[in-house]
């Protein structure tokens, strides 16, 4: 266990801070994005890819990736209603108070991608934690070589951030490809699994860094596809999802092989994740 508490950023790691819901956007029938702001002093600003533990008071706490990082400590969280806590958070209206602690874990290390081509691969809700990295990369576009965003979703109605996707698609300095598993004829995009897009992105695969987020099985196939295409395994970064509870590597709920996903991850390289992800779990 770590002896150095510096990763806690000097904050009491288990005490939630009050944040007020400023706005709420219904993204999908079961998914909302909440914009929250600190009631008093903000927590440390998360880096893209880090997560927060968010309380629905009286119900419970869940780990939520950060889907937007604003000024004065403002945060955005995209929440899918899959249980009691996320249902309560999904119902939160502007003015209501939620509890937040964090930020936790290791995010996307975009510095190491400087000078390389950057490939961002999102599946389903996986676009949410990738969004801050995407925005940071676009804000400092000159740091990277060619850039491509590949997005997979179940169907056109399940796509997140469609307005932003359209804006990004309109830029000349990034290739945006979107595919869905099935679609009606009115859909003008691609149909097929996201791995099919891998060979199509106009990047130098051997010289690319890939950041990937989505359901674990999708990330596994994407990582294999990326290595087949020539991306070095240590340049493939996955955002892992496990049962995070404490957020600081003490409780062990999120342990996967030798890694505590909450503390060592959630962003980890394929080099470290290949073996654990190949272990069959019940």
């Amino acid at each position, binding site marked *: 266990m770590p002896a150095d508490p510096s990763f806690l950023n000097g904050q009491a790691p288990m005490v939630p801070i009050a944040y007020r819901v400023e706005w709420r956007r219904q993204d999908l029938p079961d998914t909302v994005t909440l914009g929250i702001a600190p009631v008093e002093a903000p927590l440390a600003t998360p880096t893209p890819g880090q997560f927060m533990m968010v309380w629905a008071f009286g119900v419970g706490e869940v780990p939520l990736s950060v889907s937007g990082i604003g000024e004065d400590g403002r945060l955005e969280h995209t929440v899918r209603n899959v249980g009691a806590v996320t249902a309560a958070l999904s119902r939160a209206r502007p003015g209501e108070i939620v509890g937040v602690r964090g930020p936790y874990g290791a995010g996307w290390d975009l510095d190491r991608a400087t000078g390389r081509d950057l490939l961002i691969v999102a599946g*389903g809700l996986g676009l949410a934690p990738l969004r801050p990295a995407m925005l940071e990369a676009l804000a400092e576009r000159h740091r990277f070589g060619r850039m491509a965003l590949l997005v997979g979703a*179940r169907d056109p109605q399940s796509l997140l951030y469609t307005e932003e996707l359209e804006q990004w698609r309109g830029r000349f300095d990034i290739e945006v490809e979107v595919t869905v598993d099935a679609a*009606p004829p009115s859909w003008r995009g*691609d149909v*097929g*699994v996201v791995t099919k897009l891998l060979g199509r992105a106009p990047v130098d695969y051997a010289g690319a860094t890939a950041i990937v987020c989505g*359901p674990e099985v999708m990330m596994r*196939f994407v990582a294999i596809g990326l290595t087949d295409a020539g991306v070095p395994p240590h340049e493939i970064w996955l955002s892992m999802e496990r049962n995070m509870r404490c957020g600081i590597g003490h409780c062990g709920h999120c342990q996967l092989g030798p890694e505590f996903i909450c503390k060592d991850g959630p962003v980890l390289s394929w080099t470290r994740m290949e073996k654990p992800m190949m272990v069959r779990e019940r």
Partner: protein
Amino acid sequence: MKSIRDLLAEHPVFGSLDSSLLELMSGCGRNEHFDSGAQILREGADADHFYLLRSGRVALEVAIPHRGIIVIETLGPSEILGVSWPFPPYRWAFDAKAIEPTSAISIDAACLRRKCEEDPVLGYQVFSRFAQLMRDRLQATRLQLLDVYGSHAG
């Protein structure tokens, strides 16, 4: 203007064929263009051609009662449209429609089947490429069947 043989040589799937085999295969090919909206394949119809797509995009569709038409895959440049032509009873399993103006090398299936029968080297080269293509599509289909983006995915 490029010949069919030149275009075949540029195609990622068949470009690595020996020169003599390219020559043999090109005898079964011709250029074809489809306007957006054109029906290219019809479920149940004779699988008498397949297509090496050069530009544009094609949607593979299936009509489902009470649900209408569902697109199950889209194909684009460098991909191959039509994998039912090598196998009896040589009938298409799905509809295919151009969703953009599409150019392709159209290969006469009966012609190529006959040449593959006559020249086992060509037959092996063609069928090993289609086996790879069908393996890739089978794996992609299995991934689609997993419905990985469903709410159970967490």
